[in-house]
């Protein structure tokens, strides 16, 4: 296995939880809702995903538990922000506090337990192909799912009527409502979908990445996922680019450190953040505001009049 190939495999693995969580949040935001509670939903997904896998012995059921936990937490958010017109930013941050606490309580009993990590899909002959074999075909199921998810989201948003309605809801909920679309119901579904994705992203960590659970193991990845949605300008294609860019710089700076170049590690560690900022500035500069698909109603309270 060559070094380049090894690095690429690490990059894909490191980017996958970011991509999963960000893909869900992208749909949420496209519907006009800003849920800043991604970190909280992720850590809940991690705790419940691990618990589910440990109890059932199945990675798949564990992942489902993670999805369910993330979605359940997002339902609380939806009830508050959609049902009671509570400010979304505050509710999202409170959701993160709640999720951190709940996951700690749920996960406490599972700290130090061990599970069998998610299997890597080995396809006879294909996986053993040089370079591309392991890279494209030897990953775990979460990796393939994250790619399929983004493709599905793209197809849904741009190629289906339902996606069009969802985007319209995010861009102008007043008009969408006037046209007779159930704005709150659409947003509820989007929020639940986003919660499920965040839960799955969280579950990926203890189920496949580092097969054990400790509280707070998401370590801020939810925040990075939120930033990546912004980076993507709310476009699924660019989201993939952003997630892999962040993952790539993260992994590469570790490799550069191992070479002993003598560059302060603080500078190396800050590179993924700086790179994302610089690339965003460059993209924004060349495309201007026109390149952004920011939903116009993002974060705004909507209460239908009857």
């Amino acid at each position, binding site marked *: 296995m060559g*070094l380049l190939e*090894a*690095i690429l495999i*690490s990059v894909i693995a*490191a980017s996958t*939880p970011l991509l999963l969580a960000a893909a869900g949040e992208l749909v949420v935001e496209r519907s006009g809702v800003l849920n800043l509670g991604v970190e909280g939903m992720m850590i809940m997904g991690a705790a419940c995903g691990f618990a589910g896998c440990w109890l059932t012995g199945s990675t798949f059921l564990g992942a489902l538990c993670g999805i369910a936990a993330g979605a359940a937490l997002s339902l609380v958010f939806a009830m508050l922000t959609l049902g009671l017109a509570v400010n979304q930013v505050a509710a999202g941050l409170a959701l993160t506090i709640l999720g951190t606490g709940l996951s*700690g309580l749920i*996960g*406490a009993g599972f*700290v*130090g337990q*061990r599970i069998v*990590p998610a299997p890597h899909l080995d396809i006879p002959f294909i996986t053993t192909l040089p370079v591309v074999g392991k890279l494209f075909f030897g990953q775990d199921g979460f990796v393939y799912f994250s790619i399929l998810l983004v493709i599905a989201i793209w197809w849904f948003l741009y190629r289906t009527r339902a996606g069009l309605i969802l985007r319209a809801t995010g861009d102008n909920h007043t008009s969408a409502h006037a046209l007779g679309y159930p704005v709150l119901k659409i947003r509820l579904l989007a929020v639940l979908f986003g919660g499920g994705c965040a839960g799955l992203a969280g579950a990926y*960590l203890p189920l496949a*990445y*580092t*097969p*054990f659970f*400790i*509280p*707070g*193991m998401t*370590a801020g*990845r939810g925040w990075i996922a939120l930033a990546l949605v912004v980076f993507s300008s709310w476009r699924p294609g660019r989201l993939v680019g952003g997630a892999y860019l962040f993952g790539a710089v*993260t*992994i590469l700076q*570790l*490799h550069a*450190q*191992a*070479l*002993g170049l*003598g560059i*302060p*590690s*603080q500078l*190396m*560690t800050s590179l993924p953040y700086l790179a994302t900022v610089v690339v965003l500035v460059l993209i924004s500069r060349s495309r201007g505001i026109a390149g952004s698909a920011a939903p116009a109603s993002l974060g705004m309270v909507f209460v239908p009049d009857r």
Partner: protein
Amino acid sequence: MKKLLMISAAIAAVAVAATGYNAHAADKLKVGFIYLGPVGDLGWTYRHEVGRQELVKALGDKIETTYLENVNEGPDSERSIEQLARTGHQLIFTTSFGYMDPTLKVAKRFPKIKFEHATGFKTAPNMGNYAGRFYEGRYIQGVIAGKMSKKGVIGYIGSFPIPEVISGINATMLGAQSVNPNIKVKIIWVNTWFDPGKEADAAKALADQGVDIIMQHTDSPAAMQVAAQRGILAFGQDSDMIKFGPKTQLTAIIDNWGPYYIKQTKAALDGTWKAGETWDGLKEKMVVMAPYTNMPDDVKALAEKTEAGIVAGTLHPFKCPVYGQDGKAVECKGGTHLAPGQILGMNFYVKGVDDKIPGK
């Protein structure tokens, strides 16, 4: 239905009120702990929590313990310590370096309360400090790594470049050099104590760069698991991590705080407690090595011999002369070996480390 629920909740509340709130027992010594991370971090804080549990087991009928977890080292810690002092805790352990000045401040305000601060260097008449000589364990690991590494390269995952981590890297190298003078080390700083994903990424990067033994100074078993997946070897940190790498772990440095907590609490109960400076190691069993596994018998014997030498005091990891990266011998302030102060505040790499300390 809703009303019924409300009524039953109210009844439940009253019922609990009638029975509860009996946690107060005036004649028991209250012992408090301040933790840096969550108790379930599987690393540093977890080992202190295990120590506290051992204390409760040993002296549970005479004492009552309290802990505050996830206490920020900045503005919050002084309040958290003072809150313990104000609520009748007579002996307070603060378990991270960053609590040193806050502990000192509170100790001055509460001269009758006994304070114990971990891994610092300041004391007061009512504030002692304690730490483990973890570098002793690192030296043994270095000897093992020097013997076991076929490629002669150790991969080292560092958290932050504090003296304890630096002295660990140096002790490892000195141990390894004692059996393989050409040993090399690759160091990655992850700038966190607590991010399993990042620790795993660092371990993968080291493995990809051809390292065949991984050593870590971060808390989680992530690096051990990566090593297990890659079929290379690794050392555990803080706890015995053999469960996460049955065929991978060579040994582990175990933080063993329980005996110290029991000893000091007993002293406080007897009225013999004095503020001291404790720096215990393998001999006093504050630092314990996990069983030597996954290595041939001759390496195991060498490791055991090294351990015995350190315990007996015939072998000191930082025996003079110690050479810095520039090849010059470091001033030897402790007679035959570096003085404790030189090790506690270590900020240079020994000869053979081909890297630079970040920020230096």
